[in-house]
């Protein structure tokens, strides 16, 4: 969702998504003055197709926060929020957003539109609730709390979906009231058909990392590639984008290029990236010829690689299913299973857990996951800590030590293993 050089010979996907996001932001900057309606929502489990039926512009405060992170303005924004009373220990994304509000809604992306509606798509975390409660108090606009029950097993699914569909109907009535437009189910179906097309292409791209060597990095590149499917699903340009990326990947396969000159280690990455130090963080892995072949963070806005698709024939039900099945709404056992299947299906050598302070929805329990992978599944696991938003929690020297030591030891095991086989 921003720029930084890679060792790949091609950058089509990165450049195109940058252009798409620029267009998206620029449309937003004039929305208020044109009287066009704006809805804020969250990435996890977002039901943007429904809002698009009513021609809402959609804004994702998390995307704003990560833009500030990667463009290095998050530190100042966070300090502004702390001046207002926010603790140094609460989520940096929230503080970044409060800082943006306190900065006359102006960030590195330009002027941010104010909301006419806040939709808290609850699946991600409780912090979402507190975040939008704070925005509702500031903007005095309606807040719809789309409650998405946490995953508790297959036996609760029917009741959860029923509850969520009732909620979606309430939300539809609210959107009709705010925009003065009638709900048009055919329009929703058309949007969902587009979503589905993009989802098919995205899954093909993700699966391409099963190749050895992998033509793309399913964490460091995927976090850019994922932007359009999270913020502009349902549009033609989103589908076109994934077709272009798929072509780019095919081109790389043909030309035998990839994210690193020589792939030496294949890892699965769990947890979000440290946006303010993204490039430095990537370099620490690249040095070792590490390619992430699968990641959980690239699934925060939707998990399609196990078969789920938006279904135009069951529009509301499939929106509910989508929200219910996002990664941070998985319980720990399901998260472990998903990572385990990635380790296996993508022929990975190790698991890297990047634990961030800001997001306890992600990080609480990760230390226990490490225990599972090391002791029960016998998977080499690296556990490192920093933050996704707050530049103060990134210690390059410490991270470098841990990362170097880990891959040195993996390399050593590999040499010893090869010798044992040779004898």
């Amino acid at each position, binding site marked *: 969702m921003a720029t930084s050089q890679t060792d790949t010979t091609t950058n089509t996907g990165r450049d195109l998504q940058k252009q798409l996001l620029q267009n998206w932001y620029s449309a937003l900057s004039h929305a208020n003055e044109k009287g066009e309606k704006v809805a804020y929502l969250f990435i996890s489990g977002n039901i943007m197709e429904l809002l698009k039926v009513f021609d809402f512009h959609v804004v994702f405060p998390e995307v704003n926060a990560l833009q500030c992170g990667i463009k290095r303005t998050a530190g100042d924004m966070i300090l502004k929020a702390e001046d207002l009373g926010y*603790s140094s220990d609460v989520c940096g994304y929230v503080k970044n957003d409060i800082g943006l509000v306190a900065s006359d809604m102006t960030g590195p992306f330009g002027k941010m539109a104010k909301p006419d509606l806040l939709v808290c798509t609850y699946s991600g975390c409780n912090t979402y609730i507190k975040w939008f409660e704070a925005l509702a108090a500031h903007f005095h606009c309606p807040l719809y709390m789309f*409650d998405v029950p946490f995953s508790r097993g297959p036996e609760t699914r029917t009741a959860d979906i029923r509850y969520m569909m009732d909620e979606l109907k309430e939300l539809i009535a609210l959107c009709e009231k705010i925009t003065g437009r009638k709900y048009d189910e055919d329009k929703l179906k058309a949007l969902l058909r587009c979503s589905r097309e993009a989802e098919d292409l995205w899954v093909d791209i993700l699966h391409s990392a099963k190749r050895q060597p992998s033509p793309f990095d399913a964490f460091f590149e995927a976090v850019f590639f994922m932007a359009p499917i999270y913020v502009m699903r349902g549009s033609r340009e989103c589908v076109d984008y994934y077709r272009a990326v798929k072509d780019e990947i095919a081109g790389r396969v043909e030309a035998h290029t990839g994210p690193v000159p020589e792939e030496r280690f294949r890892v699965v990455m769990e947890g979000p990236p440290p946006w303010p130090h993204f490039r430095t963080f990537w370099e620490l892995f690249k040095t070792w010829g590490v390619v992430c072949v699968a990641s959980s963070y690239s699934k925060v806005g939707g998990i399609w690689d196990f078969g789920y698709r938006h279904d135009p024939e069951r529009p509301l039900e499939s929106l509910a299913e989508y929200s219910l099945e996002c990664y941070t709404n998985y319980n720990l056992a399901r998260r472990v299973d998903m990572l385990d299947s990635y380790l296996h299906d993508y022929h990975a050598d190790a698991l890297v857990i990047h634990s961030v302070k800001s997001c306890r929805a992600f990080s609480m329990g990760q230390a226990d996951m490490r225990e599972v992978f090391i002791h029960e599944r016998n998977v080499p696991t690296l556990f490192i800590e920093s933050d996704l938003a707050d530049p103060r929690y990134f210690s390059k020297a410490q991270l470098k030590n841990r990362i170097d030591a880990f891959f040195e030891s993996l390399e050593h095991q590999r040499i010893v293993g090869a010798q044992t086989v040779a004898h």
Partner: protein
Amino acid sequence: MIEKQTAMKFDERIAWCKEQIEDPTLPTLREFKSRNGSRSPIVGNFPVWAPQEIVHAAGALPVTIAGGGSNLEIDHADSRVQSFVCSLSRSTLELGMRGYLEPVDAMVFTSICDVARNLGGVFKRNFPGIQTFYLHCPQNVASPAAVDYFATELRRFRRAMEDFIGDGITDAAIARSVGIFNEHRAALADLYALRREHPETISATESYLLLRASQMMPREEHTKILRATLAELEARPARRRDNIRIVIEGAFCEQPPWELLESIEEAGCYIVDDDFLLGSRWYDAPVQLGEDPIRSLAEAYVRQSVSSSVRHYGGRPRVDDFTHKIKANRVDGVIFCAAKFCEPALYDYVLLKSVADQMGIPYLAFEFEEKMGVFESVRTQVETFVESILLFAD
């Protein structure tokens, strides 16, 4: 057991409560277990709230497991819980890892925060001997669909409890338990009313110790203790001091060391209201029983829950309830006292302090941890706070 505590004199009873909460090996629960054995399983819940009435109706003992307090050394849980997560989750896990939860047969976690949610998962994996239940409490309480949803969730919990005890739970049993819990909440409400009207009669520290003990014993027995205490307090000699009246906000989940409250009181405050163990006083009126007691509980949760940081306010903004709390308690100041790393409390602090600002009510904010050992700096801060208010009043 109960005869002993009701017969005790007030000071003796408070000292007994203190002993119970200071011993991280959970002596009350061990004693309960050795007396009752498997006839009465113990079902613990992590704060803030759980449908304890249903646990009670199953013939099990519902208890709140709120960490290990200040006397529990953390030797094992650090490997499972990062340094930026609250002490409460760490020490509750430590209790399990040390085997202190041995008398506890099951644990219930609810959707109060991201940490609690995932702690449930950690418990499930680490303690196969403890049955772990997870309940998703509705956040969209303004939705007409919320009651149906939650009734379904509570029925699922009832079935899980039935499987757990190997017997059915009748509607009549649930209705009876709701009545018992209503009586307990009424007794607590009387205790809090007494503190509000006659704060010199019982200190907040004493009231807190009594409250903490309630979560470790049969609720009907605790009601008797509370009633005996209230009767005794009528005759307790008391002298009103020139203290300021304050409320404490933010300590609804992790529980502060009692010494912290003592320091605040000694610095010149009457703590006339607080949110300690908020789940024990969860409803703003008695739960009304209809034909289906499960539905009645769901309705109470959706419509009658007290304002808190762990349940979205729905159509009743949290700031309005806080304004009311300040007015009803006629307070001179607010002490925001959030547990370190407690995100729900730390976010709400910013909203609520602006209410205090608008009302012209002074406030003081500091964070606590259950294992904090030094209270001098808090005491100095509160003394300064009290002085500034008294000075301003003059």
